[in-house]
């Protein structure tokens, strides 16, 4: 139970996903399960795809029709609670926030973990984005098997040499 362990249930996770057909295009998946006074996801989205009303405690609501999967909200969310996912030819391509050093390299094989921190699969790094405006939160693009779509959440921290 998330209130005791920090791990959301599979049902909770699935509720944040759109239909798989929608995921042919990249979409933001927001896992912000409890009301907190916070709204950068709403104010940072250039496409007005995330809505939080005047009362900033209300949970964010996403409009998948408007979301382009650009990833801007991903590095602006202080809770690191958003990723972008796309399903393509039996693979998922996800963009996750990453704030550790060293950064992984393109084509590197990394260990992908689930929401409990357990390794579930290997994945391949397709792109590493870290521009000035991201202010030190990198976006890592990772590709792995489609069957982990609801499980994969981040990668194991790489230890520097």
């Amino acid at each position: 139970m998330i209130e005791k362990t920090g791990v959301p249930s599979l049902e909770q996770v699935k509720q944040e996903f759109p239909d798989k057909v929608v995921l042919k295009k990249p979409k933001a998946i927001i896992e912000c399960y409890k009301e907190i006074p916070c709204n950068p996801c709403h104010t940072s989205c250039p496409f007005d795809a995330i809505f939080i009303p005047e009362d900033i405690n209300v949970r964010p609501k996403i409009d998948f029709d408007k979301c382009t999967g650009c990833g801007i909200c991903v590095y602006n969310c202080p809770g690191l609670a958003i990723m972008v996912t796309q399903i393509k030819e039996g693979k998922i391509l996800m963009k996750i926030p990453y704030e550790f050093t060293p950064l992984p390299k393109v084509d590197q094989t990394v260990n992908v973990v689930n929401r409990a921190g357990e390794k579930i699969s290997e994945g391949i790094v397709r792109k590493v984005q870290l521009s000035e405006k991201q202010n030190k939160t990198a976006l890592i693009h990772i590709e792995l098997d489609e069957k982990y779509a609801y499980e994969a959440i981040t990668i194991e921290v790489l230890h520097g040499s």
Partner: protein
Amino acid sequence: MRRVEVAIIGSGPAGLAAAKPLLDAGAKVLMIDRSDMLGGQLTKQTHMFFGSEKQHASKRGIDILKLMVDEIQYHENLTVLTETTVVGLYQDRVISCVKHDEYFKIQADYILVASGASEKSLPFENNDLPGVYAAGAVQTLMNVYGVKPGERVLMIGSGNIGLIVSYQLMQAGVEVPMLLEAADTIGGYLVHASKIRRLGVDIRTNMSVKRAIGKASVEAAEIWRLDKHWQGIPGTEEIVPCDTICLSVGLAPLTELLQQAGADIKYVRELGGNVPIINKKYQTSLENVYTCGDVAGIEEASSAMISGEIAGLEIARSAGYKIDNIDQHISRLHDDLTNLRNGPHGEKIRIGLEKVGVK
């Protein structure tokens, strides 16, 4: 004795936010801090803050600090005294200060106490062993001095501070195998909890530390399960190897100065302990003595900034400065505070404030 118009004790987000409207209005401000740098807690907050844009949400604490300091530091009416501890506050608004070996007194027309909070400890066997550190100390050591507190840290407490410091420890290359929480559920924001859980931190509720093990410093911790009344259950003990036990078990407002001067104080559990009785203007029961930030009740930097701004504006008004649209401005700030405290995490604060009598 030196005389000043407004003396602000403490340069955290509350004190800094108060200085701005005062300086803008034309007041002369003396800012005092015992540390050698301005910023209070913000100096070590490397993570992005929540809140809304008005409170610089999504920016990192250290960057918010830079913005706030830049806004005021070159102002001709601002004087800053760092490495200076205020050791006494008297009813006639005289404060006594110590800087290195020097001792001096200052008389102020207005005083704003923005001294923040101190960290609580936890009773358990060997809790005085080197390696048992407060979470703020761990943060200072790694984020200000660039030194790791240890290689393997057991975290105690699942409030936002415990959750965030765990994450920051991992960013510094330190292992955090486990986080214990005595209560039934995680205290801080679930987004912060999920963030460390997926990186492998085993979060366990209804658990606490029974004793620290080690000769000259911590070598392991004995932990156990707690019953409903937070009493350890014999037979449930486990040993966790670690070289550091980090305590993040709450903060207490630093109200000693106000107590010493005879301000009305009340114990309010929800606000962290003894807090000054204040009104909506952040005025204490002492004439021309105001307070803001964590001293008025443990909350967040976002609310500390707002309360600081309100206190600054109210002092400026009381001192006779004309500020355009001040009423609208202050009422907007009160709305922002209400908004921040509206959710389930704001409940404690709402109850606490009710007890103090501020509506």
